[in-house]
Each structure stands twice: as structure tokens, then as C-alpha cells.
């Protein structure tokens, strides 16, 4: 498309031209920029340019007390804030040798899984929006609203919960929460069937997703891609199974794996994960023990003993690792956040090569990126 190459100045060679997808573009859901070198509608190189909302959370961690950094963790991946708090709280508890009481652990699991469903619902809607279907987005947001209502009543906030504490959670759940969650679980199951017959079976969607954007398991390993991305490539890697934290060991759930590695596989993994999350929530509600929700004897100003340790959780987008280094002071010496979207995006340049523009955007959507999660 040479008229296009005439439009792009300087950086072109031969038949190719450069288009900017983002930082203000409907497909990038935030301020991600993709510098795409294209040959007609085919992509020869798609270079992600990130950092537009970089906030240096890791430095903030070094300038705050251990407890003061907690609210930050909810603001990295704003769609699945619970998992991030969980990872940080888990790391600090591991470093300081605090154990949360079982009721708190169960509540953490329930809220994390609710949050995972709400995050996947946003992904579902936004992904369909990328593919040009608007209506499923609204249906998904309707369902998500129910989760947010439940979590808001429990934590006081709809997105940035700041709910977990070192040694437990800050509020106990009440009967309304348990009843509301059970109702939601009962409501969501037929809803998933509806999504499958409205969206998954749709021939247009199948044609757009099957065989598109194949990512091999080997590529996932080399880039450290995790979560639904690696599970859609046939590797059943899930932190909840491989390094069981909290009370996931006591709960029975499956890790959905699809070997194809295409957009459809990742789509199906996430859809299946929502069902599994419902299962986890149901079991956790059944098993929810009585007792306190905060461990006793947690000091007001925490000073974990010197040393470093890690805590990994399975966030909605994949493996989230928090590595903390303590020097026995009020403030962390170093907080490292290894976020899943960062690694998942890093393989985009290689995976998108030779794809057509709409397919490449489908691939981008299927990675389920949250931009602050990349930029931190």
C-alpha cells in the first residue's frame, strides 16, 4: 500500500508504513501504544511502547511503611486488586512470620475469586468490544456490577478495596455477604450458558478466534507468560496448584487447559476459569470456619526481620510475584512487583508478526492487559 508509505515519513522502507495504535486508540484500553510497521494490512513489526502511566510503585514502597504501601497494591491492577493485596500481604506475613486465622484465609479466597470473576467479566466485555460486538460488554458489566455491590458492601470500595491486612482482613463478612454471594453463584451459572450460546458458539466469533494468534508453550516459557495465556497453550501452570497458598490446598477445583494456543483457547480458558471460581467460592462458603478474622499480636508498626522472601499468587492475568527485601526497619528496603501483564505483553512483538491488523488486535485483547499492571 504505497500511498500509505508515502504518508509515513522517514521511517519507512519499501512498501511498509508505520501506524500508531495508541496511546489514544479504541483498541488499547488505556494508554498503551503500539508502533506498528505494516505492509498493507499485514504487520511486519509491532513494538509496544509503554510507560505512559508509570508511577514507580516500587520506589513508593521504599518510602512508605509496610502498612502504608498496602493501598498501593490495589492500584496496580485495578480490575483484580484483591490478588495484588493478597500477594503483598502474603509476602509480608511470610517475612514477619505472621499467620492469618483460617476464617480470614477463607474470606481472602472468596473475595479473590469474586474479584477474579469480575476481572474476567471486564475482559470478556472488552475483548468482544475489540472484536466489534458491543452488547456482551453491557451484559458482562451488569453481572460484574453484582460482584462489585457485594464487595463494596464488604470493603467499602468498588475497585481499590484495601481490604486485606497483615494477619487477616479488616472487616468480617456478614450474613448479607454470604447470602449475596450464594445468590450470585446461583445466578452466574445459567448466565455463563447464555454467554456461550450468545458469544462462544457464534460463527463470526469462532472464525475470528480459531487459529488466530497462536502462541506456543515454548514461547510462553521463554517470555515468562503465565495465567490464561500459558494455560491456553497447553501448559497447566497455575500458582494455586503449583505453590498452593492460602487455603487453596483444601479446595477442589480444576485448572482449565486448552492446547491450541490460539485466541479461542485463551478465551475458553478464561470462560472456564469463571466457572471454576464459582466452584471455589461455593466450597469456601461451605467450609467457612468461625473465629477471628485478624491474627492477634500483630505489632502496630511492623518490622520484619532482615532478609528477602517472595510470595506468588495467581492473579486474574497470571502469576503475580511480590519479592520484598527487609532490613528490619519500618519501611521496606525493596519491593519488587513482578506483574503478569508485563510478561504477557513482552511476547506480543514476536507473536504478532505477519498478522493482519484486526487479528493482531484480537491477539492483544486475548492477552487481557491492564495497562497500570504493565507500567506500575
Amino acid at each position: 500500500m504505497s500511498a500509505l508509505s508515502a504518508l509515513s515519513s522517514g521511517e519507512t522502507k519499501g512498501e511498509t508504513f508505520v501506524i500508531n495504535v495508541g496511546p489514544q486508540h479504541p483498541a488499547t484500553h488505556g494508554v498503551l501504544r503500539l508502533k506498528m510497521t505494516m505492509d498493507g494490512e499485514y504487520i511486519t513489526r509491532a513494538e509496544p511502547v509503554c510507560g505512559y502511566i508509570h508511577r514507580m510503585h516500587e520506589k513508593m514502597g521504599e518510602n512508605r511503611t509496610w502498612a502504608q504501601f498496602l493501598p498501593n497494591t490495589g492500584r496496580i491492577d485495578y480490575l483484580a486488586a484483591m490478588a495484588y493485596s493478597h500477594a503483598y500481604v502474603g509476602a509480608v506475613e511470610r517475612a514477619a512470620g505472621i499467620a492469618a486465622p483460617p476464617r480470614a484465609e477463607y474470606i481472602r479466597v472468596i473475595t479473590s475469586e469474586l474479584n477474579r470473576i469480575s476481572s474476567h467479566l471486564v475482559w470478556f466485555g472488552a475483548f468482544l468490544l475489540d472484536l466489534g460486538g458491543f452488547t456482551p460488554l453491557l451484559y458482562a458489566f451488569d453481572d460484574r456490577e453484582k460482584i462489585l455491590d457485594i464487595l463494596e458492601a464488604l470493603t467499602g470500595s468498588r475497585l481499590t478495596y484495601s481490604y486485606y491486612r497483615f494477619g487477616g482482613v479488616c472487616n468480617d463478612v456478614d450474613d448479607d455477604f454470604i447470602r449475596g454471594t450464594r445468590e450470585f453463584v446461583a445466578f452466574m451459572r445459567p448466565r455463563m450458558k447464555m454467554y456461550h450460546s450468545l458469544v462462544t458458539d457464534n460463527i463470526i466469533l469462532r472464525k475470528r478466534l480459531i487459529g488466530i494468534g497462536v502462541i506456543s508453550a515454548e514461547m510462553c516459557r521463554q517470555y515468562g507468560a503465565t495465567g490464561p495465556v500459558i494455560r491456553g497453550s497447553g501448559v497447566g501452570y497455575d500458582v494455586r496448584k503449583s505453590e498452593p497458598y492460602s487455603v487453596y490446598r483444601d479446595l477442589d477445583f480444576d485448572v482449565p487447559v486448552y492446547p491450541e494456543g490460539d485466541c479461542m483457547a485463551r478465551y475458553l480458558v478464561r470462560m472456564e476459569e469463571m466457572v471454576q471460581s464459582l466452584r471455589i467460592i461455593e466450597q469456601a462458603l461451605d467450609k467457612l470456619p468461625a473465629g477471628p478474622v485478624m491474627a492477634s499480636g500483630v505489632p502496630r508498626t511492623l518490622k520484619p526481620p532482615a532478609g528477602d522472601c517472595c510470595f506468588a499468587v495467581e492473579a486474574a492475568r497470571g502469576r503475580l510475584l511480590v519479592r520484598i527485601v527487609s532490613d528490619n526497619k519500618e519501611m521496606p528496603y525493596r519491593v519488587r512487583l513482578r506483574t503478569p501483564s508485563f510478561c504477557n505483553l513482552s511476547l506480543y512483538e514476536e507473536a504478532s508478526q505477519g498478522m493482519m491488523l484486526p487479528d493482531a488486535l484480537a491477539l492483544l485483547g486475548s492477552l487481557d492487559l491492564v495497562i497500570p499492571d504493565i507500567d506500575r
Partner: protein
Amino acid sequence: MKALLKEIGSGFHSLVTGMRITLGQFFKPQVTVHYPHETLKMPVRFRGHIELVRDPQTGKAICFACKACEKACPSDCIIVEGVKREGERRKSVTEFKLDFTKCSLCGSCVEACKSEAIRFSKDYNLASVSKEEFIMDLFKRLESEQPKPPQAQPEQSKEAA
């Protein structure tokens, strides 16, 4: 050939199914709340901006400027000043500044307060054309209010369907 026909058949069926589902939704009642004509009741734990709590006996602020909230705040958006007056057991607050432009609504301050002198307001209709309006002195705000309102926040909302 057979596979192709099957694909056409199932594809067509999927399209019809999809259209049937959306038509079904077409006749269902709407789920949105039509703000601002309808508003929702905020849950009890809703974290709005903070406000000072009045002591029901004395009619004055409970806060005695211990500055625990100031210390707990990760964003440094609270400034508390107080004086120790003659004949009083505790200090009394004279200034309680909240820089709401910096506040991240994390709730650490309320948690840090041992005497329950601050709480979350249920006010979510915050909008202004000037930044200065969000640097608010909560103490002055408390003083300027009626001395004994039964509830600081009037329930102006109604439950939506």
C-alpha cells in the same frame, strides 16, 4: 463437503440463537439506575472522604489531635493541629485539613483513629471547577454545621429498583 454443509448449518443456527437471545433481552426491564433522577443508597461501609464526628454529649468534635491519622496516611493529605486549653484533659482540634486531591480513599486514617473521631461520609457527589475546593478544613466544616443535627449526612437517596 459434508463438513462444509454442517458448518454452514451450525453457523446459521448460532446466528439465529444469538439474535433470539438479544431479542429476549430486548423485552426485559432495564438494569441501569438513571442517575441523577435515581440514586443508590450507599452501603454502611462506603468509603467516601472523611469527616469529623461530633461528640453527642458535648456537641464538639471528638478528635483531640493525636495525629495518628496524619501518620497513617500514605499520601500525606491530612494535617491536624490542636491546642491544649486550660482546664481540659485533652487537646482539642483547631485545624483538620484534608487535601482531597491527594487522598486515595484507602481508609487508613479511619482505621488508625482509636477514638472513632473520624468517619467516612457517604457523599459521592463531589465535583468542582477549582482545585482549592478539595483542600477542605474538616474542622471548620464541622463548626459551621448546625450544632445538633441528628445525622450529619441527610439521606437524600432512595432505593432504586
